[in-house]
């Protein structure tokens, strides 16, 4: 490819992005409010945020579908205003909802999109990459949700893109279809491709993304690898203890003074403690209970997840209020 693509080591560079929708006169909605993002080549970047946080708006600006109100967006080293068709040749896109021509077959649709690119893969390659070989002659209208989504990704791949945008690619899919799509994305990344992905699924973000940007109210509020984000919470583990009348018999302050205990929450007689290290805190907790004569009826531990990070940062669960605009 051209020399400037080699020069640009950064796939996406967004600075001070703002997008304001004018609903009515004097009634503006700020969807994106001073957002910065830098995605290196070869990484899978996840964009996480509650509904209405500005994820889709940001992605659509990157895809050239929307004009930013303010700020600078460079895709593969180019501005949209400089060379829209040049950028389009080098990116692949799946939109949030993929509607294609109902009465065309899988093979015909792939061939159609292949014709749009200067340099495209063959229909067979696209089918093989997304395990759609058996569906070559099936009409789009007759595909299942998972098959449609795989076709959407196949079509996103036909132009040999350097950068792939996936807007909630697995929403509504069964676990198996989801895993098979992850496989496609991983292979694309392994071949040197860059991915910007939005998702509602924590597991998807944790297993697929090299780095994650959490966005809320149109701003980036945290960034890092899934491990870093969990680590930044300070206490990476959760210990849950249950016992009869636990709440009345335990003094919260003395628990918080135990080694490596960082946070404590109550839910009736269940105590949830965030701790930095299990091997320091669990023995100390058990000794403490022993000392006050409490016999735990249940005790469990788990690693903190991105979901915890998300709740911690935004005060909301990731999947709250389905049905984003």
């Amino acid at each position, binding site marked *: 490819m051209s020399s400037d693509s080699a020069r640009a080591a950064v796939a996406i560079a967004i600075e001070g992005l703002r997008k304001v929708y004018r609903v009515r006169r004097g009634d503006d909605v700020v969807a994106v409010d001073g957002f910065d993002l830098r995605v290196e080549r070869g990484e899978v970047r996840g964009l996480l945020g509650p509904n209405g946080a500005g994820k889709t708006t940001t992605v659509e600006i990157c895809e050239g579908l929307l004009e930013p109100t303010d700020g600078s967006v460079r895709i593969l080293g180019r501005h949209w205003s400089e060379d829209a068709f040049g950028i389009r040749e080098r990116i692949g*896109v799946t939109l949030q909802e993929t509607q294609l021509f109902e009465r065309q077959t899988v093979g015909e649709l792939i061939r159609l999109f292949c014709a749009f690119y200067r340099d495209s893969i063959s229909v067979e390659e696209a089918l093989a990459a997304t395990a759609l070989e058996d569906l070559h002659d099936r009409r789009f209208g007759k595909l299942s949700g998972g098959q449609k989504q795989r076709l959407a990704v196949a079509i996103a791949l036909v132009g040999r893109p350097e950068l792939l945008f996936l807007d909630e690619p697995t929403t509504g899919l069964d676990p198996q279809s989801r895993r098979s799509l992850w496989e496609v994305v991983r292979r694309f990344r392994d071949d040197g491709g860059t991915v910007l992905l939005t998702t509602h699924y924590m597991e998807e973000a944790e297993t697929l993304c090299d780095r994650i940007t959490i966005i809320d109210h149109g701003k980036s509020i945290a960034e890092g690898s899934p491990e870093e984000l969990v680590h930044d919470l300070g206490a990476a583990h959760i210990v849950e203890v249950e016992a009869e009348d636990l709440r009345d018999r335990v003094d919260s302050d003395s628990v918080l003074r135990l080694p490596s205990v960082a946070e404590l929450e109550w839910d009736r007689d269940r105590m949830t403690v965030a701790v930095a290290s299990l091997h320091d805190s669990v023995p100390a907790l058990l000794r403490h209970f022993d000392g006050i004569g409490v016999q735990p009826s249940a005790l469990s531990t788990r690693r903190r997840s991105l979901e915890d990070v998300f709740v911690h940062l935004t005060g909301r669960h990731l999947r709250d209020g389905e049905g984003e605009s």
Partner: protein
Amino acid sequence: MRFRWASVREVAALAWRDYLRTPEAVFWTYGFPFVMTLVLGFAFGESAPEPSRVGVVGAEFAESFRAVAGESDAQIRFVAFEDQESVHRAMISGRIDAYLLGSDANEDVVLDAARPGAVLAELRLRNVLHAFGGGQPPPGLEVRAITEPGGRYVDFVLPGLIALNLLGAGGYGIGYNITQLRAKKLFRRLWVTPVGRAEFLLGFLGARGLLALVPPFVILLFGSLTFGVPVRDGLPMFALLVVVGAFAFSGLGLLISSRARTLEAVSGLMNLVMLPMWLLGGAFYSTSSFPEVVQPLLRAVPLSWLCDGLRSALLDMDVSVSAFGALGLLVGFGVLTFGLALRLFRWT
């Protein structure tokens, strides 16, 4: 800006397949005009001389008219009615061609509206009334409307149906399809690829346009075989007008749908444009009897140019716009609508 013929070709193939895989679309382009031609042809074709049906009030009078008619061998079937209102209703609904007002040949005898069978009925009635009055000249028959000179109704209506077919292919065929692509966000998906607007529209409209050229010839052939609609030497001009008509109305369809985001929105616009065309375009009936004041307005209806042009080409009919005039006007209209549509057109 780049341009790739491969894209145009694939889009055209897509539009072509999409049409052929939509049985209802195929029906509306072919089946509908067939049925219309058949129905209108049989209703108004009168290819064989059939007896005129004339209503009379009172069974007694009907009987005496029948006797006279039998003697004079007039091709009239007298139908008895109970009262004036029911005989009038029968004529409005087309069950009889004319009726006699009054019950006596000496009273004022009247009949008729603008029905095609009325002229014949009038002639035949004159004979019968002559005989009925014992050789006295028949009282004046008042004819309220004069039928269109030359040809049967089916000859008149067939070019109208062909023009409507082209209007439908352009307006509905292109307008609805384009809007649907936008409403289903398919255009967004295309927009993020390197395909250009020009490539897409050329492929899509080109394929649809070519498809639209077929039905007019099929309808003409059908009318010619079934009802003997004359083609004369007008075929080359007919073909030219079909091409230009498809072009002009495709532009109109594209213009209507250049911005509409939902099918509801485009339906409103479509009705706004189509309804006046159907009513004032002169496809089904001649608008020359409309008041003089509105005639300039009627001549500005693009459908009427094509109707007139086709009639002039096929039937040598005396119409307000000649075939050449229609060609020019439609080309101009097409250039105008396409120009505007391409300026206004949006992917989203």
